[in-house]
């Protein structure tokens, strides 16, 4: 076997894993830290992708539009998330399983709205010229945009963990997660923390959407195909564990890529799903677990 036959799925898979990680990062924040199961997260990703498209309509130079689109998508998707939190989620913190169903409904509405606002076959998001090239790695011509996805995911993970660790907002979020009542007693507004966490988590979905729009198509269905894999990644990584999410996303991405190389793309998805389900069978709490005193 030639060496690039082995290395190509590894590199492609790493990029796919990075994209999954971007999609799962926001989820791990909202699901892991707040216990909210947001099935509309995939639609926030879609909103980010459409935001990138709209930015390109204003700034036509594609070299510039993508760097501008990233923060725009973050803010737009974040605001949608904030709206969802304020209007619906905040009434449902005591019913986590029901948030799942409510957000399924929100996702349906957002999908249909996108289908009617934008052309049904989807819109093209132009790739900037500086992402056109390839990088030669052991004889395999690796597309630069895959490297870009990995870099973007790395930056987002680094920024998120630094934000959680070193800023006062981050400390407040962690305090609220650890002990909501005590945090409130010490003067932290847990409502503000909830809103900010939800804004950030949804905004990260928007950033993931920009990355997804550079790799696949941008259409109303794109969110639906990310939501289940992203949830499986978060679950396999362990709730509230960034490092677990990172490892799980990378592993799933690479596994998908190798399976697709050996079989077909759709069979690879089935196999990857089964792999994660079997893994959760062995470790129901995911890769890394937080030790708690709860009974379950």
């Amino acid at each position, binding site marked *: 076997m030639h060496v690039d036959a082995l290395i190509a799925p590894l590199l492609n898979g790493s990029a796919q894993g990075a994209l999954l990680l971007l999609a799962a990062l926001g989820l791990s924040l909202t699901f892991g830290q707040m216990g909210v*199961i947001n099935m509309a997260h995939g639609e926030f990703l879609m909103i980010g992708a459409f935001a990138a498209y709209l930015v390109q309509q204003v700034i036509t130079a594609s070299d510039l539009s993508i760097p501008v689109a990233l923060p725009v998508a973050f803010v737009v998707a974040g605001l949608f998330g904030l709206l969802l939190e304020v209007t619906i989620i905040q009434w449902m913190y005591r019913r986590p399983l029901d948030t799942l169903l409510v957000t399924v409904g929100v996702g349906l509405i957002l999908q249909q709205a996108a289908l009617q606002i934008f052309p049904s076959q989807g819109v093209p998001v132009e790739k900037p010229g500086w992402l056109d090239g390839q990088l030669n790695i052991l004889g395999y011509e690796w597309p630069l945009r895959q490297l870009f996805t990995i870099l973007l995911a790395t930056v987002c993970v680094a920024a998120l963990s630094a934000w959680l660790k070193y800023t006062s907002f981050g400390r407040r979020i962690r305090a609220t997660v650890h002990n909501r009542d005590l945090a409130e007693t010490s003067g932290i507004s847990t409502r503000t923390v909830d809103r900010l966490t939800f804004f950030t988590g949804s905004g990260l979905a928007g950033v993931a959407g920009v990355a997804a729009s550079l790799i696949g198509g941008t259409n109303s269905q794109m969110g639906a195909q990310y939501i289940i894999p992203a949830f499986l990644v978060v679950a396999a990584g362990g709730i509230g564990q960034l490092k677990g999410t990172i490892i799980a996303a990378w592993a799933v991405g690479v596994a998908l890529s190798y399976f697709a190389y050996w079989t077909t793309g759709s069979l690879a998805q089935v196999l990857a799903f089964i792999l994660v389900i079997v893994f959760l069978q062995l470790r129901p709490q995911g890769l890394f677990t937080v030790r708690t005193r709860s009974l379950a």
Partner: protein
Amino acid sequence: MTKPWISLSGIGAFAVLLLGVAPFVLTDHWLNNLGKYCCWAIAAVGIGLAWGRGGMLVMGQGVFFALGAYSMAMHLTLETAGDRIPGFMVLYDPLAPLPAFWEPFRSAGFTLLAIVVLPVVLAGVLGYALFKRRVKGAYFAILTQALAVALAILISSTIRETGGDTGLSDFKYFFGYVLNDPANKLMVYLIAAGLLVVCLLAVWQLYRSRFGELLVATRDAEERVRFLGYDPANVKLVAFVVSALMASIGGAMFVPIVGIITPAEIGAAASIMMIAGVAFGGRASLFGPALGAMAVGWGQSSLGSTWPEGWTYILGLLFVVVILFLPNGLSSLPARIAAARRKPDPQPTPAAPAAAVLEEVRS
């Protein structure tokens, strides 16, 4: 629960309406549609058992629906094809042999057995593995949904073996009966409606048994049940297996009534629609899931074809409004109104706007 005859006479009235009245007042077209809603309602009764009473949000009932539906569809396809290879397989390769897993479905007995045994075995293995490891809540929901997605992808991609996205269709015979004959169509409808009544009777009996009490107890306080010496995993397992069996039966009857089965009928969206009906009608009540599923099925086939954009919005709003304001569905509405009447100055009832929207959906 204290007055069993109320529920029983309710089931009786429902049976008379479905089996005695509907065939005489409805046109063939609407009777066929009603048969389709009955199939969804059968699956919904199972979801009501697992989710409403058991607290397990089964978001992948499409998997079990598919087991029943594809078992039945394979048998009917082979029956239609006779000694030859089914038409769609020959399309891709004129000399294609019949896949080995199709062969046993030539036998009617094996097919009927498969419709019952396959979901029981799969749900049994899956449920045993998951519940014993105490997988629950959102994890369970996401895993079951992932299975439905995976199965739909698998069927879509195996076009030579399962018909892929076009699915299986053009059935001519149903266990020897010509499906085009109106009398036989009526028979198929009556079987589906009869099975729905049987399923209702079965859950009615389950709900008032000790098992039903234990199931609700497991839903509300799993740890206490464990401390009382029961194994909640076994309780949940039984409910999950029964609900899977009902989904499979619904799927099996869906095929001769609708005449086609595709991955779109069993995937994530279809599984979520089954949940929608149950949530709408009232997940924990006896009739709620079945009636809700029929209402949503009716919306799907009437509004969904004439006004598809609007239907998706309504379905989305249905989830939001019902779960947010009426978590126990429409069936809890009378009790809520009665409670509001008794206390003249309670909290402003959030049920009122919900009711307005739901009436709109229904009309």
